[in-house]
């Protein structure tokens, strides 16, 4: 790769490459509210790398928070870089342009740190590709003093092992406090001129930091883990996630970058709460982000005012894992709608639950902009909903649907999962029956032309959930189920779409994979795999070849039932929720017994609050017992 100055990179990119690519706005970095700092004055320079395209990465709330958080410190500089789309990559390789940051067009390799956010397993090949485009050695062990430290965080860092060969440091949990601590360590290390090895060892002393090269792994003959332990004294055997205790007072940016091109979530996002204690047994986010911590309405209204005036956006979205559960959702929505109705600014609620859904609330939201309604019953029968602890009933759904149709909505989307543990034929029939009953509610409400869109994804067992011990259903039977549903859902009022089973399978392999998969990742990348989450670029056969060449059986990872006493590849990462609680929940699932949200029926001892010395924070007057 050529050594190029930022000016040379900009010249080649703007005159030679951008005129020939789709959406050149992905690569400009001069958006409103983007931060352009003086390179020479920053003590630590970090490139925030999102391993997917710009419009996906820019829609991610965590990216927005961390960008302004780090840049709020005078001594640090954070610039963005996204995965270049295939046309851009081709142009960059042709003109020998290294991966560069958007703000200053500097080669990523010149930064002190490169931080990847791990939002989904299918972006892993993009990480390798971005390292390669940067001219940074892929493997941690091959990097030297001149190379940036490569760090990573986000939900997939809770099973970091498939990436252990490529990432120098993982930061587990919420970054608002942890990342500045880490940057300070890097700043001091730079000042003192510490060698890379020493920086890594010191980094392992930061709470929630995991340095994979400092651990040794042994496997049994059958392929299962035998042991996993620190290779040095003083390195923690278990890494516990970090949490922000007081979300209401934690950093939240009063500005957001306003892209010139359209992005996926092109609006102001207010994070009303963090965490969810509903306890759906398949849901990894529900386990990882505990406990529930809400923000005060006054805080949110203030943030809304600041953000609308600094961005000029025409929509405010109240985001969280389950916004309908926010104890102050009604007054906050009402205040926002009243304040912005005449200014062409709408309010939206992206995640609504059937039981906490309130048509009055949805109507408030609809006053300014019409938003579609989406519900996730997840399973077709009450029996299976009890197994997965999705505590909604058919009556809830039908009542909600009828109310919605009578208030003028004409289309509803329903999300289900197939391949859930204990699933039977009756559960598939239940999906079709439920969809038809929902459509029938249209008639009851006097609407003939209703559309119900049924989407099914395939269940992927995830680390740190009660279903982590469960096998994933094989591709062939998932396909048969999709085909069955396609037949069953033939009705002019119904639409059906489903997720590709091969993608889900590979996601299952990496979600529960171990360190040996690093080789597979490298092989697959070298065979041209990237953008695996994009169906037009997903090359399943190359992945199978890579697995074969690495001598690994994907079914061992995805389709095997694990034992409770088995050492799991992610056991050294502690989400705060105890393994004992997860096993208990798994057993209750098998018996079809539900567990009620701790916000409603008292603590069920998942372990998070005492383990992390934090508590459930509700701002609507009701406080759960802990």
């Amino acid at each position, binding site marked *: 790769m050529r050594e190029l100055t930022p000016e040379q990179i900009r010249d080649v990119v703007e005159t*030679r490459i951008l005129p020939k690519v789709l959406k050149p*706005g992905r690569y400009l970095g001069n958006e*409103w509210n983007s931060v352009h700092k003086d390179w020479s004055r920053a003590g630590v320079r970090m490139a925030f790398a999102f391993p997917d395209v710009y419009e996906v990465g820019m829609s991610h709330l965590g990216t927005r928070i961390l960008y302004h958080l780090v840049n709020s410190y005078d001594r640090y500089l954070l610039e963005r870089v996204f995965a270049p789309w295939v046309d851009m990559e081709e142009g960059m390789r042709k003109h020998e342009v290294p991966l560069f940051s958007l703000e200053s067009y500097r080669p990523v390799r010149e930064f002190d740190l490169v931080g990847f956010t791990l939002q989904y397993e299918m972006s892993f090949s993009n990480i390798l590709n971005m390292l390669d485009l940067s001219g940074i050695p892929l493997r941690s062990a091959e990097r030297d003093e001149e190379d940036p430290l490569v760090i990573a965080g986000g939900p997939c860092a809770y099973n970091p092992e498939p990436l252990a060969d490529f990432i120098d440091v993982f930061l587990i949990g919420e970054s608002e406090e942890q990342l500045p601590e880490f940057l300070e360590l890097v700043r001091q290390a730079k000042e003192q001129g510490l060698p890379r090895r020493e920086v890594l060892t010191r980094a392992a002393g930061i709470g929630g930091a995991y340095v994979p090269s400092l651990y040794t792994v042994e496997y049994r003959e059958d392929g299962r883990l035998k042991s996993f332990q620190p290779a040095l004294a003083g390195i923690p055997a278990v890494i516990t996630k970090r949490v922000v205790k007081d979300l209401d007072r934690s950093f939240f940016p009063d500005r957001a970058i*306003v892209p010139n*091109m359209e992005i996926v979530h092109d609006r102001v996002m207010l994070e009303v709460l963090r965490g969810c204690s509903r306890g759906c047994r398949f849901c990894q986010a529900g386990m990882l982000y505990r406990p529930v911590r809400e923000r005060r309405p006054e805080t949110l209204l203030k943030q809304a005012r600041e953000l*609308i*005036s*600094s961005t*000029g956006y025409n929509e405010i979205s109240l985001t969280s894992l389950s916004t309908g559960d926010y104890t102050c959702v009604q007054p906050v929505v009402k205040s926002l709608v009243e304040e912005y109705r005449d200014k*062409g600014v709408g309010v939206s609620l992206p995640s609504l639950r059937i039981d906490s859904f309130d048509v009055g609330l949805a109507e408030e939201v609809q006053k300014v902009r019409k938003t579609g309604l989406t519900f996730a019953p997840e399973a077709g029968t009450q029996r299976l909903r009890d197994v997965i602890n999705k505590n909604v009933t058919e009556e809830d759904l039908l009542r909600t649907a009828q109310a919605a149709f009578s208030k003028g909505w004409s289309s509803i989307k329903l999300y289900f999962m197939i391949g859930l543990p204990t699933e039977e034929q009756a559960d598939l029939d239940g999906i079709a029956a439920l969809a038809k009953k929902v459509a029938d509610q249209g008639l009851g409400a006097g609407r003939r032309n209703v559309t119900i869109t049924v989407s099914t994804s395939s269940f992927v067992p995830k680390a740190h959930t009660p279903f982590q011990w469960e096998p994933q259903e094989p591709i062939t039977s998932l396909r048969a189920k999709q085909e069955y549903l396609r037949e069953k859902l033939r009705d002019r009022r119904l639409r059906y779409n489903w997720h590709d089973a091969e993608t889900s399978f590979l996601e299952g392999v990496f979600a529960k994979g171990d360190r040996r998969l690093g080789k597979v990742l490298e092989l697959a990348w070298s065979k041209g795999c990237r953008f695996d989450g994009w169906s037009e670029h997903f090359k399943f056969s190359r992945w199978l070849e890579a697995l074969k060449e690495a001598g690994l059986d994907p079914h061992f990872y995805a389709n095997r039932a694990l034992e409770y006493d088995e050492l799991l590849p992610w056991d050294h990462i502690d989400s705060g929720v105890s393994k004992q609680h997860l096993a208990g929940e798994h057993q209750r699932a098998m018996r079809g017994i539900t567990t009620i949200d701790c916000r409603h029926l008292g603590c069920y001892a998942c372990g998070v609050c005492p383990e992390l010395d934090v508590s459930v924070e509700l701002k609507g007057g009701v406080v759960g017992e802990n």
Partner: protein
Amino acid sequence: MKIRVAFAKEDEAKFIGHLDLTRVFERAMRRAGIPMAFSEGFNPHPKLAFGSALALGATSLREYVDIELAGEMLPSEFMHRLQGQLPRGLTLLEAKELPAHTKALMAVLNCAGYRVRVPLLLPLAQEKLESVLERFLEQESIGYVRYSKKGRQEKNLRPFIRSLRGRVSSEYLELEMEIDITEQGSIKPLELVGVLREFGELPLDVDGIRVHRTGIYIRGEEGVKSPLDQV
């Protein structure tokens, strides 16, 4: 009230697409606290109407947009407030209040001027260029093929060329052109350069083209007018 605004689209804004420009203006106006008028319906949109679209990647000395406001505001105040909130590369030049029933920009703009710079792959003599241009303009019909969402279209680009001049430097060919915008549509400078290269077998590196719009205006019997002149 309605305001007609002239603005320049400079280097830093040249990759903001035509459709994106509407959003960029809307957000800038909201940040600036300028009261916008919105369309009725479920998805209210601000009432903005741009003149002729500029190709992605092209810069322009002078573009126009009509904006409807929900209240009264002096054009000078409007310009001052909006300029402070526009991304770099978008510079406001002039604004005037529009009288009622002014014709839309799209309906009156009928001619655009461009300055185009294309890198040369081999040296080119000025005389050779001039003879090519002369022969080129003598043609009554110059066919070319446009591929778009509508599929393959065969068109004649000669009727749209009002003038075309060129100058050769050591590394570049610079073309000045005036292109008519008619009810039958118009042509893009890139299309013209592509056809010219083939016609004259010119050593042009078309991939490295830079297009700069020098103006867009109303050409009538009394000569050339700006859409702000009438107002």
